[in-house]
């Protein structure tokens, strides 16, 4: 078998994995057994598919083979009987495969996949464990791949996943078909985890962005999968649109030296037009439902940026309104802070400053708060106060990248607001 063949089969296994493992989990009611059965079936696929050609329905094939292998395993350990040769069992299966595939109960597959995703976001698990578990179980990434994406050792990641699995087993998995309310709760949980996975990749700084980019791609794949299962859920459309629109900018987000390029400074010709088109189509569809939600609102904001051919064409007034809606849907000081940036563009720095003043106590340790506040002060010509805010921002920066990011923000605002005046700033030294 050529390497290319193997690569294609691996891809087919990846794409069939959520449905197959989800079904096996329903049969065996145990995650480890389900995973093992799937691994077994995958090994057989690598042997059989190059000879017999891939089956028409890989997921159905893997479910049948995985289930039979696991049942045989149980029999074998019980009776110590010799089994027929693998190949014999497989060729029988191939003959019957078409019929079997038709007989497989397809009506379960939505809930199978949703359940599989849902157990990864068990509320008792910390977010880091949820993400690791989802990438391992649903996406089928190896521990090594996940460890690499999270910049931790293989051993640490192995431990993280083992702990998460133990907690999930302890908590028990809900196997009865969910009711409507429960299903929508599960969907919300799964959407949140997909967004977390995306953000892990998206918020990477320049030097790790490339290593972590697969997280963004995987989140998009999972979001599309979820949307295919639940085609009329506007929030899932919103989530998918949001991450597509954000990821569409990835080629323009970092300079050659790895530093972040702000939205206004990005070369928009580097944005991925196909991804933007898909994101815009999804947000258009979602809006027709008239059932707004946080993902849709954020996607709508991202869409307004994507639709602007130049920064000057950005519809800041609309963005301001959308952030207002987001404040109602999902109140958070960070949302208000983001809104203030739009307000500054629309109604000027004083209005923006008035908006964020009440946040000072809540965001006392949030470096962006001081960066943004400093910028508004500077636009108002209150440079001394601005410098105090900037210093505070840089002192609060968690990484040199964050500090650099703030400084860049500052530099740009100096440029924008005071084109003819250089302003001396203390605290602008690299941290």
């Amino acid at each position: 078998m050529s390497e290319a063949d193997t690569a294609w089969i691996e891809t087919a296994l990846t794409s069939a994995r959520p449905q197959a493992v989800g079904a096996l989990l329903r049969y065996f009611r145990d995650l480890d057994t389900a995973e093992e059965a799937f691994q077994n079936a995958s090994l057989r696929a690598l042997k059989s598919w190059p000879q017999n050609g891939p089956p028409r329905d890989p997921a159905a094939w893997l479910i049948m083979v995985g289930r039979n292998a696991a049942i045989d395993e149980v029999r074998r350990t019980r009776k110590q009987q010799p089994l027929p040769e693998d190949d014999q069992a497989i060729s029988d299966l191939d003959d019957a495969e078409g019929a079997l595939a038709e007989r497989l109960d397809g009506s379960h597959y939505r809930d199978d996949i949703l359940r599989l995703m849902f157990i990864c976001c068990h509320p008792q698990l910390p977010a880091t464990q949820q993400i690791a578990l989802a990438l391992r179980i649903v996406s089928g990434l190896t521990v090594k791949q996940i460890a690499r994406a999270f910049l931790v050792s293989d051993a640490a990641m192995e431990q993280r996943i083992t702990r998460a699995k133990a907690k999930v087993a302890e908590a028990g998995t809900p196997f009865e078909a969910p009711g409507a309310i429960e299903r929508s709760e599960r969907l919300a949980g799964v959407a949140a985890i997909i967004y977390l996975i995306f953000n892990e990749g998206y918020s990477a700084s320049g030097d790790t962005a490339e290593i972590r980019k697969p997280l963004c791609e995987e989140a998009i794949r999972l979001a599309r999968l979820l949307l295919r299962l639940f085609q009329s859920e506007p929030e899932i459309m919103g989530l998918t649109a949001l991450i597509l629109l954000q990821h569409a900018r990835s080629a323009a987000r970092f300079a050659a030296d790895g530093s972040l390029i702000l939205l206004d400074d990005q070369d928009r010709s580097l944005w991925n037009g196909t991804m933007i088109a898909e994101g815009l189509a999804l947000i258009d569809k979602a809006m027709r439902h008239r059932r707004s939600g946080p993902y849709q609102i954020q996607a709508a904001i991202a869409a307004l940026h994507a639709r602007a051919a130049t920064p000057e064409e950005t519809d800041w007034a609309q963005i301001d309104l959308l952030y207002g809606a987001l404040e109602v849907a999902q109140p958070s000081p960070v949302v208000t802070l983001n809104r203030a940036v739009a307000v500054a563009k629309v109604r000027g720095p004083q209005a923006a400053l008035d908006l964020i003043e009440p946040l000072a106590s809540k965001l006392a340790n949030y470096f962006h708060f001081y960066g943004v506040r400093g910028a508004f002060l500077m636009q108002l010509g209150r440079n001394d106060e601005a410098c105090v805010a900037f210093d505070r921002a840089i002192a609060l920066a968690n990484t040199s990248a964050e500090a650099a990011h703030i400084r860049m923000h500052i530099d740009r605002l100096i440029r924008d607001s005071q084109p003819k005046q250089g302003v001396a700033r203390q605290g602008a030294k690299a941290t």
Partner: protein
Amino acid sequence: MLYAILCYHDEDFVGSWSKEQDEAVMKKLAVVQEKLTQQGRLGPVARLLPTTAAATLRKEDPPLVLDGPYAETKEQLLGFYIVDCKNLDEALDVAGDLGAANPGGAYEVRPVGVFRPGGLST
């Protein structure tokens, strides 16, 4: 005679292709397309965005808009070619050449009744 060659494939599978795999397939398809272009036989070609981006209008009164593609099938319509061929055999040959570029999926070959190339260019 013009034939529409409609490309069907499992969207989840195609969506799981790595960037490299996708580019490799497109490169192989481009070779087939180039040959047809040289022969002056290739009309419009479209690769469609995922069915998750689709909406379907049902002709009721008033029309009903549903999310997703018209048909829920194991394999989805992912794109199409319009090619000039003498007969079905020739059209099937073209479909075969296209099919050699990637594993799995199917091509529906359908004669075109009315064809207006239109004036769009991207």
